[in-house]
């Protein structure tokens, strides 16, 4: 391959890359501006952590994590099927910015992170997998502070294989 053809190939890639970047900018402009939601994107480092507390410090940095009675985790103490465990989170904290669900005994303790806009109420319900009997922790970032609460859930059949 001659030098010139190599150069042409590179420039074509560049043009495509720039075109895609431009399209992305145009698209994000037309979809409306994200006001409160974090621009940081997916917390890959926190998903890679093998311990809840490490994942929490990856998510929220140096912010102190305070135990709070104002978060309620509504779920059964005994989960028969670890593959599908309903969980409802309620909080009356003002200005919720993010909610994280973690389970210590899961292979990946960070289950999910939800970024909230100001127009969302302190309510979230979903279904998660639990590999084994475990502490389930919910962290809520509100008004620039991080609050957490946790509870123990006994799992009869783990959801690891699901």
């Amino acid at each position, binding site marked *: 391959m001659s030098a010139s053809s190599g150069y042409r190939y590179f420039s074509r890639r560049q043009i495509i890359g720039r075109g895609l970047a431009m399209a992305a900018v145009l698209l994000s402009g037309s979809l409306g501006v994200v006001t409160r939601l974090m621009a940081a994107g997916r917390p890959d480092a926190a998903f890679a952590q093998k311990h809840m507390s490490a994942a929490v410090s990856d998510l929220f940095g140096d912010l102190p994590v305070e135990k709070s009675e104002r978060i309620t985790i509504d779920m059964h103490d005994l989960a028969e099927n670890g593959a599908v465990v309903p969980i409802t989170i309620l909080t009356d904290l003002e200005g919720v910015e993010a909610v994280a669900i973690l389970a210590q005994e899961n292979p990946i303790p960070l289950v999910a992170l*939800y970024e909230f806009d100001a127009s969302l109420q302190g309510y979230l319900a979903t279904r998660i997998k639990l590999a084994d009997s475990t502490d389930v922790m919910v962290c809520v970032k509100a008004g620039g502070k991080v609050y957490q609460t946790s509870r123990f859930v006994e799992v009869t059949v783990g959801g690891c294989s699901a």
Partner: protein
Amino acid sequence: MAETIKIRARINQGVAEVRTLIRHPMTVTRVNPDSGEVTPGHFIREVVCSHNDKQVMRCHWGQGVSRNPYLSFHVENAAEGDRLTISWTDNQGASDSQSITL
């Protein structure tokens, strides 16, 4: 990938109570202990919920969210005729989006 998202919502005193079901396998990455063979997981990475073109919630999911995920949340300042959009993207690049009018 059509029709993987079901959205139900009702307005209660200006608050939209949204419930969503997404059809998705949500499998985890597995390593066969005998052969060491790795079966890659297939799961939704991101879900974006918008209310009248304004993003109200962005979910970053890992492999710990159950198969056919259920998601429910409450949006304030909602009125009849408002548009609600849910879209997801998984780790294999597949995606889907669904809108409803409240």
